[in-house]
């Protein structure tokens, strides 16, 4: 977007347009009012002094019988003019100070920066008052006083902005090319920071308008017989009992003009700055896909039963009917690319999807309780003690300002009714259980004092505060280095073995899942496309996507002279799922039927489930032992 288009965009927002109209009116009034009503504003009428508001004098009269309403209108010019003068001065001085580090070199520049930093700490009004002492009371003193008072803030802004630009490549290139400092500043730095500076100058103009009104109100600004809004306000305040309008009308004028400058500035800042999406789309209907097949195997000892689970955000449904069962002690892995819906499935099962996300399911049973129908009151205790969560990034998953021990103890206090002391003792005991050395001392530390692997172990320890029957681990090792990965996986395995705990492991790393889990669910575009025992993964995978995933994992036998294998094409767009099989566009086996009809997830009679019209077929041409490879690398121009 060009800068002109962006500024025009300001006018298209309601607030921006209103502010621009208001600002235009203020500026127009500043030009025209003295010409039109200058005479009436100065007309002395000793017969009608200090009159309250009336039909003739909308805001009453002052102590010489002059009409206050017209004086307010005429004062627009003085007020706006002086404010703009002060702003111009402040911006100029601020620019000089702010670009000093670039022009004067590092040593002198640092001195200027330090001075600016100290000056910024003092409020503008205090600076303005001090400068007013030096320059004396009166408009000619107040302009430099306010100008110099806003300069440090502007200098600071210029410094930070120009420092970021000056660090960029094109400026470095210009420097190396021997372009002088001044030229670098004028040609390369300033044009790139002009927009935010302009936005801030607009707001500064609003600020100095208010500041000027303040100084004049105090009697330090415009002196009689001159007058601006601040002075009129000060005069009106003395008679506020007799004629409130005399104080309120100039006050309203100041506020309106100040708002006009500020709002234009803010609207421009929004247009110029990074755009944030506003408004969430709302939609109520779930897309109707074929109902997910029901998996009824061994539900008697089921820890978790999920049927036809859907997660939607507005009109987008990233999880489109997922069903599976977890038995006691069983470890199930969910694999798939980013965006396949595997993490959302985990969060939905854990009841952690927040608005505007919506979760629906035909069935979502945890330990025999239907989570979607359990009264909200009864849920926290059940989930808080029996379901443990382990998240991907242990660095951000702990509250940075609370001690680790407290964060664990909280669970026992909340759900087990423990007091502070016993809860903390239990927390230390759990930290010990996850093999954190010096657990008692560590419990008193903050998360940032832990290493990544230790944090993840503490996270697992947090899950062990209750008596978990299910651990949901969402990419628990992705953020860790390889040796620590293995420790964390071993710990999870030990925890499971000790108490027959079931685990749902989300991972994009098919190797980890194969190693840790009993069963693997392969997800693609919000659906489960294959469900098979982990032991059969290498040889028994029947879905082309599963094979492609396996093929994309390099191992020791991978030919290192060949480019690494990737799955061609891009994952399906969750906003627009295709009518047929979502994998068809990337599938080497796909035919017309695949594009038109969506395959259902069907039991294959071998202990697995697969959703593919060509399940188990090999792509043409079959190359001995390299079927997967050719499927995966098709379209790479080999």
């Amino acid at each position: 977007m060009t800068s002109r288009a962006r500024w025009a965009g300001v006018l298209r927002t309601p607030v921006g347009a209103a502010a621009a109209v208001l600002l235009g009116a203020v500026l127009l009034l500043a030009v025209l009012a003295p010409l039109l009503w200058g005479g009436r504003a100065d007309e002395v009428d000793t017969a009608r002094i200090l009159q309250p508001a009336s039909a003739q004098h909308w805001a009453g009269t002052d102590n010489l019988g002059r009409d206050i309403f017209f004086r307010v209108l005429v004062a627009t010019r003085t007020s706006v003019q002086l404010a703009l003068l002060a702003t111009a001065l402040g911006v100029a001085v601020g620019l000089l100070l702010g670009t000093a580090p670039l022009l004067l070199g590092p040593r002198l520049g640092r001195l200027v920066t330090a001075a600016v930093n100290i000056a910024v700490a003092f409020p503008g009004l205090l600076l303005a008052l001090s400068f007013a002492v030096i320059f004396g009371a009166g408009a000619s003193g107040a302009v430099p006083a306010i100008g110099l008072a806003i300069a440090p803030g502007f200098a600071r802004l210029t410094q930070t902005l120009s420092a970021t630009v000056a660090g960029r490549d094109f400026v470095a290139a210009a420097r190396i090319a021997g372009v002088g400092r001044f030229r670098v500043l004028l040609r390369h730095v300033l044009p790139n920071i002009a927009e935010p500076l302009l936005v801030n100058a607009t707001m500064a103009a609003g600020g100095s308008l208010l500041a000027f009104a303040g100084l004049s109100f105090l009697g330090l600004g415009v002196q009689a017989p001159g007058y601006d809004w601040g002075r009129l306000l000060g005069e009106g305040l003395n008679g506020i009992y007799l004629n409130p309008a005399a104080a309120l009308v100039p006050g309203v004028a100041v506020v309106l003009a100040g708002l006009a400058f500020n709002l234009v500035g803010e609207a421009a800042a929004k247009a110029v700055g990074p755009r944030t999406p506003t408004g969430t789309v709302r939609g109520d209907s779930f897309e109707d896909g074929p109902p997910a097949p029901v998996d009824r195997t061994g539900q008697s000892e089921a820890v978790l039963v999920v049927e036809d689970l859907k997660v939607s955000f507005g009109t987008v449904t990233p999880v489109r009917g997922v069903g599976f069962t977890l038995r006691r002690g069983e470890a199930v892995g969910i694999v798939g690319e980013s965006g396949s819906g595997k993490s959302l499935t985990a969060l939905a099962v854990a009841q952690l999807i927040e608005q505007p996300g919506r979760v629906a399911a035909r069935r979502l049973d945890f330990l025999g309780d239907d989570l979607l129908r359990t009264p909200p009151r009864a849920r926290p205790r059940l989930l808080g003690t029996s379901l443990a969560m382990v998240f991907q990034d242990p660095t951000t998953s702990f509250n940075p300002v609370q001690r680790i021990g407290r964060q664990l103890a909280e669970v026992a206090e909340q759900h087990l009714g423990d007091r502070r002391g016993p809860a903390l003792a239990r927390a230390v005991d759990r930290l010990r259980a996850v093999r954190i050395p010096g657990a008692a001392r560590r419990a008193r530390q903050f998360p940032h004092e832990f290493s990544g692997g230790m944090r993840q172990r503490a996270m697992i320890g947090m899950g062990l505060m209750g008596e978990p029957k299910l651990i949901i681990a969402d990419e628990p090792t992705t953020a860790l280095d390889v040796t620590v990965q293995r420790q964390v996986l071993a710990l999870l395995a030990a925890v499971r073995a000790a108490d027959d705990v079931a685990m749902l492991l989300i991972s994009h790393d098919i190797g980890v899942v194969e190693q840790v889990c009993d069963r693997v669910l392969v997800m693609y575009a919000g659906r489960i496309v294959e469900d098979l025992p982990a032991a059969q993964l290498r040889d028994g995978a029947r879905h082309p996507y599963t094979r492609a995933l396996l093929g994309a994992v390099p191992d020791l036998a991978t030919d290192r002279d060949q480019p690494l294998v990737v799955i061609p094409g891009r994952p399906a767009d969750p906003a627009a799922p295709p009518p047929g099989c979502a994998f068809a566009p990337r599938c080497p086996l796909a035919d017309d039927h695949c594009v038109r009809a969506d395959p259902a997830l069907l039991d294959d009679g071998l202990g697995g489930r697969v959703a593919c019209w060509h399940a188990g077929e090999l792509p043409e041409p079959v190359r001995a032992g390299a079927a997967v490879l050719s499927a995966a690398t098709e379209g790479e121009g080999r």
Partner: protein
Amino acid sequence: MSSTTASTAVFAHLLGNPWLRFAARRLGQLLVSVWVLVTGAFLMIHLIPGDPVRAALGNTAPVELVEARREALGLNNPLWQQYADYLRHLFSGDFGTSMLSGMPVSQVIGDRLPATAELAVLAFALAVVVSIPLGLAMAVLTRGGRRRPVELAFTSGSVLLAVVPEFLVAVGLVYVFSVELGWAPVAMRQGASSYVLPVLALSLGPASVLARIVRVETLAVLQAEYIRTARAKRLPDRRVYLRHALPNALTATITVGGLLLGGMVAGTVLAENVFAWPGLGSTIVSSILAKDYPVVQAVVLVYGLGVLLVNLVVDVALALLDPRSTIRES
């Protein structure tokens, strides 16, 4: 020898303590700022074009009187000596003598400071007490795009209040509560009810800005993964917001809002002038107008110290609240 190594070891140990390092660095920063402030106040008088004594006494004053006053103020001495005298006097608590009333300036300050300090502290407290719960509640109510109308009302209301300067708020409050309703006195400091309007006028603007900051910071914190962790622990909402979200939102708020609270110290000047409050704010204005420079100098110094004090409190609060505090480290 052994005592040297021992003391070096102690020293090294002290240096290793982040709190002591923080205290040492922050103290150094404060001293530099105070020095800049004092020097600025000293130079202020000397930067006034022309003869400040002549300006103060007027054009009709006899030359001998002006000369005698210059001599008494030490203005005929070389600049460095005046600076040294100024610093020495400051250390002994001597701020000079008012050119108008002939009273010691320290006495003027002593008389006026309590009224201003009361006003500032009350307004400061009110702003904090109102803005934190309000901002938090607004964040919770409007998170994830909930309750758009509430959000719109809050943001536009707080923007409006933030842009109206305290003296205009004061005038509006006087009009509504004193003139129209007659609930509170128009001006002066007499009894508890006379505090209501000045404190309100001074704190409304900062409170609304602070509430906005609290809301924005809380919304950001609510997106954080540790909040999801807290929810995964199935803590009650109240605990998630108060124990996990609020402390984190506050550290960010204090960083952004710290300067604002310092600005309230200066804001007292305007509020005091609307309400004829017998504090430093009305003193500095009348002194500037009367060109009573020793008083002006001292009041500027006191205000500046107030601001530095607030900034110090803010930094210490930040260091205490946030264990990772960058303030302590950098």
